[in-house]
């Protein structure tokens, strides 16, 4: 199970979805996913992630004119049972009347794989996800994390052409989620199956995705690698949705933005009326106010262990957030200078 690039390349073409009642919950969307790639659909609740995943799975049909292609072949009208996709649901949806092995081997049984061969493949799957001692366990005797692993093993046992996961970690507690996230990452890499992973957790998206598709209100806001999405958000929605972001607004004069607390250099800025820019909290440095071109006053100070989170007033139209070194000595009320390295400020189209 180590060969890379298994599964298919995937293309969604103009896939929209209107539910009965006439509300279009998904605007026509086109998306290309390479063979073996892991793509995360990320966005707030109700933005259409599950709907997109179900269109890819074949559980629902896109509106007329939309097409789903696997390796260039139109599968739009192929029902899910013929598409050979692996699915993992948020609730795991295990079969309660079967054992762990029965669950994992179900797809092989449907495909009439002989019993001995089936047993071998099931054992291999259980080894792969680390539950090899649970063979004959009933699924109601499993912990949440174990159920999740069974669901995963069941989904990949038949070597699906795409693996589709809908918030597979959301039902678990935070520490388990962190551990499984690492395991999932390894698993996706070793399986090399084309994988689409739905989540509303940006940490998960960053950790797992080769690319992230940020969605909002039924449209794609941006598609990019985790660091593109983080450092070069396409618009204000993406900037604010991913990580913490300071949104700065002010008039631009060539490459300088005029702010209440001074001036900020922005690469590629052009003179205009009001511009909107984004800068991440950790990109801002705290320096002495003497001679600084941009200053502010410390409003609050929270020690987070690994860093010091400051809010600084009077620097921009609203207070800005700065993540400083945990060794920094400052007091609330201090006047400080703020520096931002070249290239860390990004102009946004709102």
């Amino acid at each position, binding site marked *: 199970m180590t060969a890379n690039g298994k599964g298919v390349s995937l293309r969604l073409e103009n896939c929209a979805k209107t539910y009965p009642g006439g509300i279009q919950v998904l605007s026509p969307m086109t998306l290309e996913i390479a063979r073996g790639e892991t793509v995360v659909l990320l966005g707030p609740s109700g933005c259409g992630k599950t709907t997109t995943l179900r269109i890819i*799975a074949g*559980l629902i049909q896109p509106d007329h004119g939309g097409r789903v292609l696997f390796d260039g072949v139109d599968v739009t009208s192929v*029902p*899910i*049972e*013929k598409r*050979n*996709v*692996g*699915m993992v*649901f948020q*609730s795991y*949806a*295990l*079969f*309660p*009347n079967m054992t762990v092995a029965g669950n994992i081997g*179900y*797809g092989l049984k*449907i*495909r009439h794989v002989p019993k001995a061969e089936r047993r071998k493949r099931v054992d291999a799957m259980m080894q792969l996800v680390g539950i090899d001692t649970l063979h004959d366990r*009933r*699924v*109601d005797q499993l912990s949440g994390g174990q159920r999740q692993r069974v*669901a995963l093993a*069941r*989904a990949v046992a*038949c070597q699906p052409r795409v693996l589709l996961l809908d918030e597979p970690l959301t039902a678990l507690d935070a520490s388990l989620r962190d551990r499984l996230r690492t395991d999932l990452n390894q698993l996706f890499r070793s399986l090399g199956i084309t994988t689409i992973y739905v989540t509303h957790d940006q940490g998960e998206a960053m950790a797992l995705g080769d690319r992230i598709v940020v969605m909002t209100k039924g449209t794609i806001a941006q598609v990019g690698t985790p660091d593109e999405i983080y450092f070069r958000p396409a618009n204000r929605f993406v900037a604010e949705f991913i990580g913490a972001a300071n949104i700065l607004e002010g008039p631009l004069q060539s490459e300088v933005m005029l702010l209440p607390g001074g001036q900020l250099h922005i690469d590629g800025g052009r003179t205009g009326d009001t511009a909107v820019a984004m800068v991440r909290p950790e990109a801002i440095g705290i320096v002495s106010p003497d001679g600084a071109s941009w200053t502010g006053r410390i409003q609050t100070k929270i020690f987070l262990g690994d860093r010091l989170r400051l809010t600084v007033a009077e620097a921009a139209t609203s207070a800005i957030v700065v993540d400083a070194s945990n060794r920094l000595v400052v007091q609330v009320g201090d006047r400080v200078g703020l520096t931002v390295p070249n290239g860390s400020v990004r102009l946004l189209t709102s």
Partner: protein
Amino acid sequence: MSSRMFVALCLAPLLIVAAAFFVLPLARLVVVGASGPDGAAAYLAILTEPRYRESLVATVILAVATTVATLITATIVGLFVQRHDFPGRSVLVALLTFPLALPGVVVGFMIILLAGRQGLIGEVARALTGQRLVFAYAAGGLFLGYLYFSIPRVILTIMASVEKLDPQVEEAARALGAGAWAVHRDVILPALVPAFIASGAICFATAMGAFGTAFTLATRTDVLPMVIYTEFTLNANFAMAAALSVGLGIVTWAALAVSRSAAGTSVAAAG
């Protein structure tokens, strides 16, 4: 006061009522059953006397057949109605459950109107084949009557269970390649087993004890409740009537007990 004492005190009134209205008459029934000229041998007569034995066997067969046919019909209809939305769906559900409101006598009467000597089916059959088809007064009529009042109860139970099924489990099976038939066999029907057992047991018990329909149809097949009635009123054979009643009770109670333990294990297996 210990909590055990408290619970015992709370239960006391219930126990007294149960004793007065349930245990005492039942005990009396058992005693009366053994009070005839043959004594306790009356109980044996249920099995040795051909008339009683045949009636017991016929009643059990009829009840089992009713239960099986009801479960099959109600499952198919319940699944369909619960899963599909179509115009007139609520009207259909109302119609399907309408027989719940009718007593057995009325059901018997309706069977006569349908399959009796002047019945609808007879007329149609005569028009088609020249032969009048009359089965209201045979086992077939009883069976139809029992089905008529069993199906609504079971349909309601099945529909409630179907509604509670997790659609994602079916989707998971389909994703693994299961077609409609396999999904029903491996996912839907196993999930409905507890409902089958519970509603099947009630259906069986009701069919075993049904009286009104049998009385109205006055069928050639003597079901046990009819035999008890005849012994009691016409022959004034109180002892035999009591013995038969106890026998009927034991068979029904045993069926319910078996189903309860089966339900226990299946519920555990289904998680």
